[in-house]
């Protein structure tokens, strides 16, 4: 049996609110092997994005722990977690999160440049060609459609060859046809590059393309579909 790339043990998240403390995630555990894919589904406010944030080390749990690529994230400070993210993690966001002031090529080059790759431009160009945007390299985000922007974001996410790719509602801002094409692209690339995919979505069809699925409701795990 392969060792886990991502493990969560007894995760809870409690936040203060006007009515006292609010538990938005209850005692959740999971394991994910390298190359696997996991969908987190649930309605709005079920705690999907909170879980994603905790798994990716963007936030810390109130209780429990997360191990990502052998690092116990809860024992690391923010800068150390940033280092783990830099080495092992890629992201695709619902709102694309492209930098307005950079064109498509420069957006994809950014993580490569941060790593100090001398061939950043070439690799970014190849990736953009792979996602079908070879003709739009110098276009700024505002000159691209939503689907095109998400493709740039996907290219950026794979640029640094992450071990785990976190995707937060990657098709949430797109029409169904474009969403379909984007999810095809996401799974194709994931397969090609052997990354582990953690996907948050309320789109059941998209979620069922993953090998495993967990369903959240009110911050609790209510269903688990294993292969």
């Amino acid at each position, binding site marked *: 049996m392969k060792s886990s790339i991502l493990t969560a043990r007894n995760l809870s998240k409690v936040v203060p609110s006007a009515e006292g403390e609010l538990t938005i995630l209850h005692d959740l555990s999971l394991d994910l092997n390298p190359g696997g894919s996991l969908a987190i589904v649930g309605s709005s406010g079920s705690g999907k*994005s909170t879980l994603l944030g905790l798994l990716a080390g963007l*936030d810390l749990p109130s209780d429990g722990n997360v191990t990502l690529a052998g690092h116990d994230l809860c024992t690391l400070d*923010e800068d150390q977690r940033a*280092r783990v*993210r830099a080495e092992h993690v890629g*992201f695709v966001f619902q709102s694309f*999160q492209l930098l307005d002031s950079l064109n498509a090529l420069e957006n994809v080059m*950014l993580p490569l440049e*941060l790593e*100090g790759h001398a061939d950043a431009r070439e690799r970014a160009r190849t990736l953009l060609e792979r996602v079908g945007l070879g003709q739009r390299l110098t276009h700024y985000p505002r000159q691209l459609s939503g689907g095109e922007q998400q493709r740039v974001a996907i290219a950026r996410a794979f640029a640094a060859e992450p071990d785990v790719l976190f995707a937060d509602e990657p098709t949430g801002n797109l029409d169904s046809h474009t969403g379909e094409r984007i999810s095809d692209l996401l799974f194709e690339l994931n397969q090609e590059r052997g990354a582990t995919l953690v996907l948050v979505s309320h789109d059941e069809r998209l979620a069922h393309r993953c090998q495993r699925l967990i369903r959240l409701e009110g911050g609790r795990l209510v269903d688990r579909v294993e292969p």
Partner: protein
Amino acid sequence: MSHLPFTRLLSLATRQLWREARAGELRVLFFALLIAVAASTSIGYFSARLSDGMLMRASEFLAADLLLSGSSPAAEQQIGSGQRLGLEHAQTVEFSSVIASDAGIQLASVKATDSAYPLRGQLKSAAAPYAAEQPGPGPQPGEVWAEARVFAALNLKVGDSIEVGAKNLRLTRVLTYEPDRAGDFYSFTPRVLMRLEDLPATGVVQPGSRVKYRELWRGTPEALAAYREDVSPGLEAHQRLEDAHDGNRQVGNALGRAERYLNLASLAAVLLAGVAVALCAARFAAKRFDASALLRCLGLSRRQALSLFSLQLALLGLSASLAGALLGWFGQSLLFYLLQGLLPAELPPGSLTPALAGIATGLVALAGFALPPLAALGRVPPLRVLRRDLLPVPPSSWLVYGTALLALGLIMWRLSLDLQLTITLLGGGLLAAVLLGALLLFSLQGLRRLLARAALPWRLGLGQLLRHPLAAAGQSLAFGLILLAMAMIALLRGELLDSWQAQLPEQAPNHFALNILPADKDAFADRLAQLSPVPAPLYPVVPGRLVMINGEPVRQIVSKDSQGERAVQRDLSLTWAAELPRDNPLSAGSWWNSVQASEMPGVSVESGLAASLQLKLGDRLSFSVGGINRDARVTSLREVDWNNFQPNFYMIFEPGTLQDLPVTYLTSFYLPKQQERQLVELSRTFPTVTLLQVEAVLAQLRSILAQVTLAIEYVLLFVLAAGLAVLFAGLQATLDERIRQGALLRALGAERRLLIKARQAEFGLLGAASGVLAAIGCELISFLLYRFAFDLTWQPHPWLLLLPLIGALLICGAGILGTRRALNSSPLTVLREG
């Protein structure tokens, strides 16, 4: 990402900056900085060069840049030091001597000079008394020049010979103007000018004679400063070093005020820069929240993300500052080129200092205003990529404003090197900002209640302001500060020009009459009344020397180089008066009543001299008048305006105290240039009376003031232009949200006219509020400035009430211009571009 070395970070920052610049993201911040640095550099250059120029002109009053004077010849090493430093050198020796001709004798003030004299300014002379004067070199060895008075007194003509001591010299020209005569205002005897080479042969100067030796120096400011430093410690008790600043009170005051004004103008430019940068930097930071969160997701540590943005900002600041400094330099060069006919021909080129100060200004302003919002970027939680509502914990306001104030204070102090001015401006500004900010916030809250019943355009426009009252108050304060800086410079300009005008009215006395005998007094006054429209009263004068203070010899009390030292080294003109002279307000004690009970007579002392001699009310002063000692008690201290070209006195005695001593009278009067021939007749009728022309001094002072005025006018233009530019740039920085809102309203079907009206309401109110703030702040700061920095009398300025209107018009115009894109282009494009 611990392996991100600095060089990579720098290259990344450079590339990011370049990309953002290309995308048009940095334009506003770049131009705000560019304008600010260009303005402060050009004002810096303009004032430095003009002030050097004015100083050069003022140096003519000394005939040199620096003067070492003493009652015995300067030591060899004192002269050697100047020569080693490469300074130009001239020497003069001055003494009183009787000159003789066949017709009689006359006491004259003789000046013997070498051929290099004067080092600044020119001698002027005429071929015959009262003929047209011409500039040119001084007399040759064997020759002598004399003032017209000497010609009249001794019945001489050009070509005659006169005897100075044992030497016979030929009179070749009539001396009409010596540049350094002004500093010696009260020299009563007429001037005779001869060559130093002839001096030994006269045999007049013997050990123990009362002689004034002057070493004149001219050179670069650096060399002069080095000379001053070298020579100052070893100065003998009888020696003094002076430059144009301390050489002449009238010019010194005018120069001092002009320099302060120019400094203040630079400070206003810095303030403008600060406001511009503050407006833009906050936007710079806010626009990078997403980028910062993303970079953190991509694995950059907090420190690295912060370094990346700081480096970007530093690079931006440096390039904008360098470009601004260059632009500023070209700006002032162009101005000097355009003004070449009006300015002195040989203006010094100006050093690198103003450019460096301009660049430093840009960088420090950027650091002070932009670092605090930037620090917030380091604290953007990476979770923001998932939840857009997460904003960084804002930095403490104390930190933000503290850093900004510190930065402003540092620049102001560096530029003006004047702690008092800096503290006055900064303290006044801060006080005004806090008070007015609170007032504004309060009024905005009140406005909210009124708004419910207002028409739609008003609700739309003002709603925009009310939604973020703190931001609206901040913007209003920023624009208020811009208007304030502009209004303040305009206001001070008017006051300074008025004060100079008052100092030198059209008919300022241009002649002094001295040595009027009591027997001639009434006849002279009558004759004067016919000649001059505005004669001053005749003042009795008794020459006397202050010898003791409270029984202690005065020489042991005074410090070297003080006003007191100069006053006790020579005879003072003592006078008496029953009434306190006009323009002489009492600063301590009381004026005497007609009946004085005390057994010791009272004396009123000029307050500056009193301070220098550490005199206080009730002190006993002993004077020696022609060998007779007189005691008096200090009963009052008086302020004296030495700039008014009226007879002024250090000591005024109680009437009845000095009457028994030999007295003469003096007065000053205005005589139009075309009536100058009357002087000859006047001096023939009253041969004992000494007439002094101060027209040359006045003309020189007027020409300096004209240049200063010109400088001030142009500096005002600079500040106004910079203010407007910064206003537009600043407004641009606050427009994003408004453009979006406008597009949204248009998409919802709002008519163009409605939007324009809403904008007018919003910007009009913002501008009017800024104007009110500027008017109140301007009055407050001007009050502090007049009182503590410029020594001017403060009065309210009703025209400042126009500022709200000006502010409303300016900001309304600029705002509508800035948001026209939202009105003219398709709302869809605007919304899509976000």
